[in-house]
């Protein structure tokens, strides 16, 4: 039908609507763009035993001459360093691997939870969502420390396994990859469950009846109807988890072993131990560029979904 057609008359923007866009734009400029430019600048500098610990520093008092010296002082040395030492590449790959694997685990754990909440009676849903968010009321660091207690050799987990007779000797949990995955899945679960719940809760249940009516058994209807309709939630949840997990520092540092270096830890070491601000900044900029890829893909998918509408 023509009235549902694609073309809408061009709208004249009023001052009010421009102002509405301006506020978040200014916010992003002040708290994202400017800090990013500073980090980018530092990544192009060189280390120096000085205050701040890098060169060159823009000297505005020196005027045009100062600015030219400043530009001439910038170099790509830190990035060359990233490329030359395999430690950095290994950390990046390790981070992406852990992020990808744990995002998949989160999806496997989070989907049934979100599905269960979405199918629960209305009044119970509010309570269940509250329970999912509740751990956030405790500080993140404290919750991770609690996991150290649970996972250590004489911790709760081993006590339980021994009591149940599942193992004879206490197992080593702490300082292993398993501990990292446990910590990440535990910490990021709400970020997966909430978007999934939002998309599953919106789904019209008569669609499943319609599928059954058309000869589709319920388990098949789940794959043919429920999963495709919850895809926006899956993508949102996966991105909300994948991106911060890739840059995670606290969990691998506290729960993981010394042999596992995620990029967050590498960055930390460069910044605080080696006091190499330019390389640390380069690590951060490169991480941002890597994470930009899934974000751009997501944007692209969203635009397509919007055009479809």
């Amino acid at each position, binding site marked *: 039908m023509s009235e549902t057609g694609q073309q809408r008359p061009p709208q004249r923007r009023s001052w009010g609507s421009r102002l509405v866009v301006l506020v978040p734009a200014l916010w992003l400029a002040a708290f994202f763009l400017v800090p990013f430019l500073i980090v980018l600048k530092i990544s192009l500098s060189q280390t120096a035993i000085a205050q701040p610990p890098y060169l060159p520093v823009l000297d505005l008092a020196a005027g045009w001459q100062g600015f030219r010296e400043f530009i001439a002082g910038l170099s790509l040395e830190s990035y060359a360093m990233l490329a030359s030492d395999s430690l950095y590449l290994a950390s990046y790959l390790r981070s992406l691997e852990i992020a990808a694997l744990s995002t998949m685990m989160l999806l496997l754990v989070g989907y049934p939870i979100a599905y269960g909440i979405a199918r629960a009676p209305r009044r119970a849903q509010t309570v269940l969502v509250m329970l999912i968010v509740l751990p956030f009321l405790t500080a993140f660091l404290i919750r991770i420390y609690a996991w150290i207690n649970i996972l250590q050799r004489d911790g709760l987990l081993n006590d339980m396994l021994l009591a149940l007779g599942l193992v004879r000797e206490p197992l080593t949990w702490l300082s292993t990859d398993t501990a990292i995955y446990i910590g990440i899945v535990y910490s990021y679960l709400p970020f997966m469950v909430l978007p999934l719940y939002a998309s599953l809760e919106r789904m019209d249940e008569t669609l499943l009846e319609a599928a059954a*009516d058309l000869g589709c058994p*319920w388990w098949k209807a789940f794959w043919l*109807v429920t999963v495709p309709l919850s895809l926006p939630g899956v993508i949102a949840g996966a991105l909300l988890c994948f991106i911060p997990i890739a840059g995670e520092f606290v969990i691998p540092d506290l729960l993981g072993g010394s042999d596992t270096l995620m990029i967050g830890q590498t960055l930390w070491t460069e910044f605080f131990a080696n006091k190499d601000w330019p390389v640390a900044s380069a690590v951060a900029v490169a991480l941002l560029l890597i994470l930009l890829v899934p974000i751009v893909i997501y944007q692209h998918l969203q635009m397509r979904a919007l055009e479809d509408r």
Partner: protein
Amino acid sequence: MARDGTGNETLGGARASFAPWTDPAARPLVRFEAVAKRFGVVPAVDRLSLDIYEGEFFALLGPSGCGKTTLLRLLAGFERPSEGRILLDGQDIADVPPHHRPVNMMFQSYALFPHLTVAGNVAFGLKQEGLPKAEIDARIAEMLALVKLEGFEQRKPHQLSGGQRQRVALARALAKRPRVFLLDEPLAALDRKLREDTRFELTDLQDKLGLTFIIVTHDQEEAMTVADRIGVMSRGQLVQVSTPSELYEQPNSRWVADFIGDVNLIEGRVASTGPQGTEIKGEAGGRLRAAQTVDVPLGTLVWVAVRPEKVSIAAETPSMTTENGFAGTVLDIGYLGGVSIYKVKLDNGLIMKAAVANRTRLVERPIGSGDRVSLSWEPTASVVLTR
């Protein structure tokens, strides 16, 4: 339609020659046997029995909450009966899950899959049968032609108007070639004009396909236009199952008479009954006559039902009330375009309505508010109701 005055006559349905329910040898396609469905302790369907025949267009009509949709969902398999049996082709289908029943439903909300195109929606049920792709494509084309949606194959449901969506839902369910096609308030979401057109399309479709249709509706006009028979439901029970004209002309209770169309009800007691008809003495005075015979003792309290359009109104006042004749004063006139409804307060205190077709352009009505008038009707127009 012919009335022989016995009260047992069968009046024609939508199709004059189609009446398997009058044939005692005919085997019903769908049979509800004392089916009850309770949600908690509240019965939605209360020990209901009903036979529906192959090729029939059956309407379940009733106010909201009467259990008509539950009855449909029981047949589709979304609900299990608490009691009783549902037979399809003589087989109890209690243990057949919905996806194995040769029954398809068109949902009130249409329940189109938003992530699939029109073609994808129609193909959904066919793919479950594992049909070859060529046949699925052929069936999609056939169905979309049937509902006049050619060229819309690649549209998504949200790109369609309400009427188009309704037709996709129709095509999707009919593509399965069901033994019984269930329609849950199929026209409720359409606007009035579209609804009227679609009614005729539905009867056309049913005629063309020869399938058994069961429609659920709360709109009596809709049920009357499309159905061969109508089952009127109230509180989980069938109050009357009849052809549309029988339902209107020979309702079996005050409730049905009042639910289907407009009616005047006059209380009275049977004074005499016999082959010449029944005479009733009005409780508020006056004598009433009906052409039919009733099988109740003399003196029983009954109600005479008269449809407003069967009541004649005249300006002159007769000197005395006669059989089926009453004098009164016009209270108020409702002009509805095609007809005018006269509300008359009779001298005995009752209020009656008379509907008069406006055959000429009325510049000035011959009868006005406050005028003295007389109302009368033929004995054949009276229906004696005992409950």
